[in-house]
């Protein structure tokens, strides 16, 4: 529809002129300067209520009991319209009276920037360092001494035997217990910390309102057969009514404040807040503001139930487009007003940070909650879905330059206008780090290969870092298992044990020195991968079963496609689409190692396996020649057929080993390639590799080639575009670092480069699936490192998410700085041209 108001190029151009209003500038400054504070509200209420209801020593908690518990918390929480105080870096506690009022009431925690605690999951890991939290070097949190005592005395002890890790351990039995907790060098299991890695179905919230959904639950309950089903429907109703109550309490509080407010403008602001929250999310949303209000209120409720590890917002530009258009047509809003609302929403979404113990930093350094937002792409019918709101949300993102939300852009070559890709590239040039860009064609192909219908696949949103997920209907827990692939290679090199020997861990696949050829080595690796897949999926399923028994999720289930229709909680497989995701770390290093083994040990026999093994154990001390030779083996990310073949084989093996398994909810496992900062954390622990990598060096991030291995951008992009998309079913993070130039052409060059990378070359290849940029000027980074206080908001791309540079560990900073940098323009530039033509007067 060319007459669509939201497609008017003049209006899009006008968006570019909008700047942040002073109100937002101030709120943003407060947000960036605020020190996270531990919030006691949730653990306190939850512990008291769970204790009163004797839920703490139960081995099974029904979904209805859980829903009632949450409803009571929602009805007891302090409704926060505007926080009274914040704790600012370098200043301490300041009153926020007189600061601008937010346009959305409600909050994740009781603090301006809060650390919500989930003692049923991992909060107890903070126990040893409770007193140190305010003083620790990385990511300090503020906590008051009385709060330390309350946690130590009252709250934490209550959960010693009632938290998920312990319940799982007690059930695991001897064989799995060790695997649950003792193999941190091999894999991480994130169900210990909850499942929020998904996108709720906000479409139904906005269209129908929660009261209507509650009514449906009530009707279905009446007709349902079996106590479990009736329980589920009652639970959904409880959850929905609890969320409605939370909205209404926010509304009432805003109204009460309005009555006390002497200033007329603020009074009007509070009344508008009261009105929006009275209506949303109970009723269908009528306006853009009500839409955002409904989503935000539900967000509060969902985060009461689950810790936030990548709970994602989905396709906001699609969800809210009709409301925005209606507002524009009715003259209720203009672009400035909408942008301001979005900025408020962005700040709200970042009002909490995950509580991470000190060592967690090595693996998930400086991460926020990774709440992904997805913009652009195509609709369920395959038509272009980019609209003015996509541009507006992008504009808000580049103006705000915040770590959270994690904004992702979809681009469908041939369907979306090239101007959209150029706009995305411009945002990257302006922010230096965001948004990541996803190729709809390759992603949809990968998703349909796993069984999604075309319409479901096209309606994907990004979850967490980079994982495409059919929005509102797929419960994919794409971060369920993180695998250190390098340690699996070690098992194949060292007969199923760790490097230093010790007990058998994987499978004894024999001495690689005795193998007839490289094929046998591959078989050995394949067997170790199978062992690992069996092991980790069994553990994941065990944890999933614990979730089913003691942590059903009625709130999330109440705003999701499937549980209502099927009468099943999400934890039991109620979603329309189920799955679990495995993130594989160290792919490039392992592919390079395979190629080196193939060429030097098994084909040319330039080095015997025993000699190689000894060299690895010595970290190549005295083996410089060998190491140099190994490092010149075919590299992942190059055109070399050996490297390409090993990559394709390994991707296929991982897909086969995990993808053939069905999880506890009846969904298949999927494999993705993104690493957060685990590539640095695990890299620091790993020994030397056949690829020539020294002990302790970081692995390559995401699915990116090893830094320095492929210095040519075209080669690297070409190779990455040739990877088999159908084996990469849970996303990939491909980091490309550029040194930007201020030349006018950069934006077009970047867009053309992305377009070429996404191109399937007339069916000769898949086309790249994802790319994310780090566009750092070396001087800017140097200055930021020298004066961190001046650059509190300098964003950098880690792997899958963005972080503030100042928050990153020194090792992680080094990794980013040492990534291969490609020039967007050589130093010389193209030259300066003057026309000599058109000489006529």
């Amino acid at each position, binding site marked *: 529809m060319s007459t669509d108001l939201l497609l008017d190029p003049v209006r899009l151009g006008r968006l570019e002129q909008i700047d942040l209003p002073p109100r937002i500038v101030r709120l943003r400054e407060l947000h960036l300067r605020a020190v996270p504070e531990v919030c006691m509200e949730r653990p306190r209420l939850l512990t008291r209520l769970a204790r009163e209801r004797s839920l703490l020593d139960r081995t099974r908690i029904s979904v209805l009991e859980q829903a009632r518990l949450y409803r009571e918390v929602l009805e007891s929480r302090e409704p926060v319209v505007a926080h009274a105080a914040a704790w600012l870096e370098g200043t301490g506690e300041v009153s926020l009276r007189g600061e601008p009022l937010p346009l959305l009431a409600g909050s994740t925690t009781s603090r301006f920037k809060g650390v919500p605690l989930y003692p049923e999951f*991992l909060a*107890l*890991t903070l*126990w*040893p*360092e*409770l*007193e*140190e939290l305010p*003083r620790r070097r990385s990511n300090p949190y503020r906590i008051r*001494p009385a709060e330390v*005592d309350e946690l*130590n*005395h009252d709250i*934490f*002890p209550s*959960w*010693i*035997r009632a*938290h998920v*890790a*312990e319940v799982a*351990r007690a059930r695991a039995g001897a064989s799995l*217990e*060790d695997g649950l*907790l*003792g193999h*941190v*060098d091999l894999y*991480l*299991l994130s169900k*210990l910390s909850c499942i929020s890695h998904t996108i709720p179905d906000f479409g139904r919230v906005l269209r129908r309102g929660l009261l209507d959904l509650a009514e449906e639950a009530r009707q279905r309950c009446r007709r349902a057969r079996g106590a479990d089903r009736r329980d589920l429907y009652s639970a959904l109703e409880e959850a929905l009514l609890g969320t409605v109550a939370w909205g209404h309490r926010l509304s009432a509080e805003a109204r009460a404040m309005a009555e006390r407010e002497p200033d007329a403008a603020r009074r009007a602001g509070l009344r508008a807040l009261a009105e929006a929250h009275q209506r949303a999310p109970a009723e269908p949303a009528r306006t853009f503001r009500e839409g955002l209000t409904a989503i935000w209120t539900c967000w509060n409720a969902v985060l009461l139930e689950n810790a936030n590890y990548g709970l994602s917002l989905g396709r906001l530009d699609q969800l809210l487009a009709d409301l925005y258009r209606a507002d524009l047509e009715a003259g209720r809003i203009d672009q400035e007003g909408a942008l301001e609302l979005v900025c408020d929403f962005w700040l709200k979404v970042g009002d909490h940070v995950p509580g991470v*113990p*000190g*060592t*967690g930093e*090595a*693996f998930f350094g400086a991460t926020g909650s990774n709440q992904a937002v997805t913009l652009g792409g195509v609709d369920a019918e395959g038509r272009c879905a980019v609209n003015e709101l996509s541009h507006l949300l992008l504009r808000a993102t580049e103006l705000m330059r915040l770590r959270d939300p994690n904004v992702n852009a979809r681009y469908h070559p041939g369907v979306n206008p090239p101007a959209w890709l150029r706009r995305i590239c411009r945002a990257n040039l302006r922010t230096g780090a965001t948004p990541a860009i996803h190729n709809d064609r390759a992603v949809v192909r990968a998703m349909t290969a796993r069984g999604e219908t075309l319409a479901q696949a096209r309606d994907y949103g990004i979850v967490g870092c980079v994982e495409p997920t059919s929005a509102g209907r797929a419960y994919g827990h794409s971060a369920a298992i993180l695998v250190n692939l390098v340690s699996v290679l070690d098992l194949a090199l060292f007969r199923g044990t*760790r490097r*230093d020997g*010790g*007990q058998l861990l994987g499978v004894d696949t024999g001495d690689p020195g005795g193998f007839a050829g490289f094929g046998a080595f591959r078989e050995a690796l394949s067997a170790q991968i199978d062992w690992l897949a069996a092991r980790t999926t069994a553990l994941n399923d065990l944890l999933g079963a614990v979730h089913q028994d003691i942590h059903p999720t009625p709130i999330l289930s109440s705003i999701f496609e499937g549980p209502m229709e099927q009468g099943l909680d999400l934890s039991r497989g109620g979603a329309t689409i189920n799955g679990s995701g495995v993130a594989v770390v160290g792919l490039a290093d392992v592919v390079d190692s395979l190629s080196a083994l193939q060429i030097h040990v098994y084909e040319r026999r330039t080095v015997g396996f025993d000699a190689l093994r000894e060299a690895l154990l010595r970290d190549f001390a005295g083996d410089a020649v060998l190491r140099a030779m190994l490092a010149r083996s075919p590299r992942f990310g190059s055109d070399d057929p050996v490297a390409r073949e090993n990559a394709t084989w390994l991707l296929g093996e991982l897909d086969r080993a995990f993808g053939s398994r069905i999880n506890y909810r009846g969904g298949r496992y999927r494999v993705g390639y993104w690493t957060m900062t685990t590539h640095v954390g695990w890299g620091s*622990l790993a020994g030397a590799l056949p690829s020539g990598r020294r002990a302790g060096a970081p692995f390559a991030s995401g699915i990116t080639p090893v830094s320095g291995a492929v210095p040519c951008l075209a080669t690297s992009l070409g190779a990455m575009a040739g990877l088999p998309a159908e084996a990469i079913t849970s996303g990939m993070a491909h980091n490309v670092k550029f040194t930007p130039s201020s030349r006018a052409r950069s934006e077009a060059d970047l867009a053309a480069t992305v377009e070429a990378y996404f191109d399937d070359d007339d069916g000769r290849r898949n086309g790249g699936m994802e790319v994310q940029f780090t566009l750092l000027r070396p001087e800017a980074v140097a200055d930021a490192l020298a004066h961190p206080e001046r650059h509190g908001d300098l964003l950098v791309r880690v792997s899958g998410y963005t972080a503030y540079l100042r928050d990153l560990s020194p090792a992680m900073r080094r990794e980013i700085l040492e990534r291969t940098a490609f020039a967007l323009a050589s130093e010389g530039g193209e030259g300066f041209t003057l026309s000599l033509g058109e000489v006529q007067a």
Partner: protein
Amino acid sequence: MTLVDWLDRADRGLGAVLAGRQIPAARGAAAQACLGLLLRGLEAGACASESFHRRHVRGARARFLFRTEDRALASHLVLDGAELRAGVGDDGRPDDAEWDVVVVFRDASSISRLLLSGSPDVVLALVRRQLRVRGNLALLYKLGFMLFDLGGRLGLRPGGAP
């Protein structure tokens, strides 16, 4: 993850106590003595300080066994709701199942290597299988907090006693 978290934290306490300036004699002493000393320290702390006792001991129930893989060395620590007891040996309960938490060191040298190094690298210790842990980790987290507190009270870390 969780295990690493704890150990890193806990052994800041452990490491501080044992590698600290206050007890140089502990350096080079037998691993058993190290461990024993540490647990004695806790015991002493619990007896000597009413606030320490109130904070960590009263109402707490947990049984910890520390031993080497070959059971040649062992120490234990018991919180029985009212008191903290620590001692050498396995307290006459050789079966791991009788303990809430069992920390198993690969050998004596891995105890001293871990406890006496200035900044113990627990992650490496784990990867190298110098130790493993069985049991309820939450209790270890609690123990970590006690040790951290003890370190502070003994003036072994910056910040001092609360």
